[in-house]
């Protein structure tokens, strides 16, 4: 396949355009985070005066700082919730995609219905329940609702992908002399990977971004996550919005996301090229 410079040029322009469109608002946030309080509303895109104060303020005080503990909480909670969610969803999706049993639609429809109920109505009773159970303001107190509301999406995604997997490949591998476990690992797992990593990214970002449960089910930095912590940022006075600090915090917390996505995005397409024994 010959690729002329014309093709390269078109692709370059396209890719640059896409990256700019995707990242321009992030760039704007970055600019806000570098502005001094005096110039934060000066209507300029590029700051007139630069400062790193907003970033420094976020980490003042070590573990008591406004951002450090919430950031740690966010990372741990999102990782644990994502891991458990993918596990549970995989089992369920596997059953739905491959096994025959009554109540399939019930499980699917029911989980969808659960995800559709307005969360604002559920946080009140959840608050009461969690206080009664003693898991208010704990990691598990957030992990459980995150599981609940992320599972439907994960299940649906995985079912959609598991159905596309040619399961007869397993049989073919068995005929070739592989044990069930080998067949699974070498043939099925790579094909399942795109779906699973996709689902993992979606669940992780869902947990990362959640505000409502975080602000309702936590009361201290013990388990408060970043989005909720932002609501506690203070400006210079009661009426001054801590714009610079919030922007700085937002920029900082995208770094774990970038790492997570960078690691996982390759896996989304890895499945097709790795070991597909297709006749």
């Amino acid at each position, binding site marked *: 396949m010959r690729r002329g410079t014309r093709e390269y040029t078109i692709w370059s322009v396209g890719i640059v355009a896409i990256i700019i469109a995707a990242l321009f608002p992030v760039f704007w946030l970055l600019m806000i985070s570098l502005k001094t309080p005096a110039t934060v509303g000066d209507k300029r895109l590029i700051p007139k005066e630069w400062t790193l104060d907003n970033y420094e303020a976020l980490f003042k005080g070590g573990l008591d700082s406004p951002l450090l503990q919430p950031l740690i909480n966010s990372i741990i909670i999102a990782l644990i919730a994502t891991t*458990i969610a993918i596990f549970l969803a995989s089992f369920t999706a596997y059953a739905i995609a491959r096994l025959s049993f009554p109540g399939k639609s019930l499980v699917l429809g029911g989980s969808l219905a659960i995800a559709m109920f307005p969360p604002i109505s559920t946080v009140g009773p959840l608050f009461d329940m969690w206080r009664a159970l003693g898991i208010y303001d*704990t*990691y598990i107190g957030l992990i459980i609702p995150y599981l609940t509301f992320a599972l439907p999406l994960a299940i649906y995604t995985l079912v959609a992908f598991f159905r596309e997997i040619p399961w007869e490949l397993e049989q073919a591998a068995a005929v070739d002399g592989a044990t069930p476990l080998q067949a699974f690992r070498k043939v099925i797992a790579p094909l399942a990977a795109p779906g699973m990593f996709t689902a993992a990214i979606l669940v992780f970002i869902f947990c990362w971004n959640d505000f409502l449960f975080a602000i309702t089910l936590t009361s201290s930095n013990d388990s408060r996550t970043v989005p909720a912590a932002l609501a506690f940022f203070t400006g210079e*006075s009661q*009426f001054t919005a801590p714009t610079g600090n919030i922007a700085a915090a937002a920029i900082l917390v995208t770094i774990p996301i970038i790492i997570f996505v960078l690691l996982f995005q390759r896996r989304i397409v890895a499945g097709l090229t790795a070991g597909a024994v297709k006749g």
Partner: protein
Amino acid sequence: MLSRVCVAAVLCLSLGLAACGGDSGGGSNTLNFFIFNEPGGGPQEVAKKCSQESGGKYEIEFTFLPSQADAQREQLVRRLGAEDESIDLMGLDVIWTGEFANAGWLDPVPDDMVGPASSQVFQSVLDTAKFEDRLYAVPIWSNTQLLWYRKDKVGDKPPQTWDQMIEVAERENMKIHVQANRYEGLVVWVNAMILSAGAKIVNGPTEVSLEEGPTKRALEVMGKLANSKAAPPAIDTSNEDSARLGFESGDSIFMVNYPFVYASAKENAPKIYKEMGAAVYPRVDADKESKPPLGGINIGVSSFSKKKDLAYEAIRCMIKAENQITIAEKGGLPPVRSDLYDDPRIQKLYSGFVDPLRDSIEQAGPRPSESPAYTDLSLGIQRGVHPVTEIKDPQESYDKLKEFVEQAVKREGLL
């Protein structure tokens, strides 16, 4: 893929982490104070001082609430609705008194506390802590809006009425900054205008007042400003911060706002700060004294608290004159006691506008906080008045506002 062992480990970890965290009930002498993190740090310092002075009798611990008033209320209401016993002291916005009291979340202030709580305190401020004529909370600091003006443009005596202000601003081709987004700040403005015009919004919890003549006059002035050349282009989404930023950028000649703008200008816009003057809130009619807005914080004791006596002792200490001055010095928050405005430290802190400040709080017109359905009222007023740029015919606007307020007072329908 993670093996089963890993999964088990993860589950154990998260369950184990469940053990850490959780509510800090604290010792039997801990008083939990639920309040937002006041940036100046005054309340925190005062609480620490009082805890020390109590000689071990009580220890005030802060559980911070979010910075926005609505979010604070949400957190408090959720807990109070669940009859949470861990709340002892609460920092209440002046508009929550009636709502919380009627819901049974506040008990009347004990008789022996009423004296200390009210001594020397401005009547207007005390009214914000009352429900059905009894005191349900204790005022600790106040706030009001002043008319900030550019001395280099209008000299030392700014115009007294809104009409005059609009005329001057149009002539100078500069703006007047207010707060008119669809939020509580708009209600602050509307309430001040209506009261300044001589009417009232409600006559008791379920009776709408809104005397036609003065209300129409107030709306007329608001609409006039909103549609004049002096209105900032984004007036329909303006708030305290955008007003401050606008004034600091030099585009405006007048602004109504809280005193925080003075300290802010000193830091962020020194050139503007030099020319900043402050006066009492503008009048709607030249012959009627204006009723400036009233803000501030009252301390409430939760009716579910198990340490009410201790709590009131702590309050008794925190509202002492010395401590009110500390809070003022640290955060610029005006004291609730009128005698403190003669104190040299307060005079120094607010040098240049001590008198307008004291007068403003004295003649201030509180929002109808004794109404238990205040939030309905607030939402109704917001719907009735916003956007101010659409107030072109006072009669129409008046009818619209009246309709919404009547619906709100009856707590009917969707708002």
